């Protein structure tokens, strides 16, 4: 393997020890994750607020999402979280070739997730199910589709596009995070190939791992919220 050369990381002079540096970096990462939780949290609270006022648009809107695709993407992301965790585990074990393989599988899972998301988006865009004022879907076709689940329905509420505003904002912001996460893991993968990281220094791997798991964490809530509205 190309990982024969091992590079040694020396902690910066303003830290007492390597552990001190590692703890400080990880604490910074957790502070950043809190800002991420609060950013997505605003969308979650907005969702809860409007779901309480207009439950019917969320019920009708979610009939246009396919729970099987949502469940498939849930499994893909959970598996990628496992491989990310194993990437850190093998780095701790000083096995860089196995760690790099795990990181590569994690990136591939991210790509599979985005491809499934692409098919979901293009289907909705094709039907004109766009957010807010961009919504152009045929009212009669939407009513016919929604009637399959809600036979008593006589008309589609005029504010149905609000559901799609939430759908695109929440999954879109999440999707951007998946792509950024894939880029960061690729950067770690490259660095590991050049001999960085091992049992004594894996701060970068741990930090990027925390970011990736947060993406998984947010999807765990998005899946029932957008696909399984009852």
């Amino acid at each position, binding site marked *: 393997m190309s990982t024969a050369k091992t590079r040694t990381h020396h902690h910066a002079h303003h830290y007492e020890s390597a552990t001190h540096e590692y703890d400080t970096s990880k604490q910074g990462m957790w*502070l950043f*994750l809190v800002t991420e939780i609060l950013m997505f949290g605003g969308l979650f609270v907005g969702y809860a*607020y409007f779901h309480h006022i207009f439950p019917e648009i969320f019920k009708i809107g979610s009939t246009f999402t396919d729970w099987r695709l949502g469940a498939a993407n849930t499994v893909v992301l959970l598996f990628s979280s496992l491989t990310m965790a194993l990437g850190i585990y093998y780095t701790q074990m000083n096995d860089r070739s196995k760690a790099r393989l795990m990181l590569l599988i994690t990136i591939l899972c991210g790509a599979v997730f985005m491809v499934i998301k692409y098919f979901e988006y293009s289907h909705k865009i094709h039907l004109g199910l766009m957010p807010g004022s961009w919504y152009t879907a045929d009212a009669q076709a939407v009513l016919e589709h929604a009637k399959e689940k809600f036979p008593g329905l006589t008309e589609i509420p005029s504010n149905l596009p609000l559901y799609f505003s939430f759908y695109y904002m929440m999954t879109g912001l999440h999707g951007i995070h998946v792509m950024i996460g894939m880029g960061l893991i690729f950067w770690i993968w490259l660095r590991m190939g050049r001999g960085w990281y091992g049992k004594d220094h894996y701060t970068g791997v741990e930090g990027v791992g925390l970011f990736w798991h947060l993406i998984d964490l947010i999807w765990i809530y998005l899946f029932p919220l957008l696909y399984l509205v*009852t």
Partner: protein
Amino acid sequence: MAHTHGDSEHHIIPLAVYLKVFAALIFLTVITVWVTRFDFGAFNAVVAFFIATVKASLVLGFFMHLKYDNMMNRVIFFSGVFFLILLYFFCYVDEATRIIEKSTL
């Protein structure tokens, strides 16, 4: 050095634990879909939220190592959760005390 016990920062979680956590997460995903067959009325959202939170706890505790991490990182995480609940609480109070036309579906 990495195997030093008592040094929580460098605790290595065994491979078998990661695999068990993954199996539990997949099982809970099946449960997430399965419970939608039942109608708990107003508690549908509560049930879905509860299962999601169990899954989130597993990811946080094991994959994100929070179970073995220092107290400071746990406090940082829960401060985020606390302010999120605070935001939700005041929005809920605002919404619940308004007089608005309710949905009929």
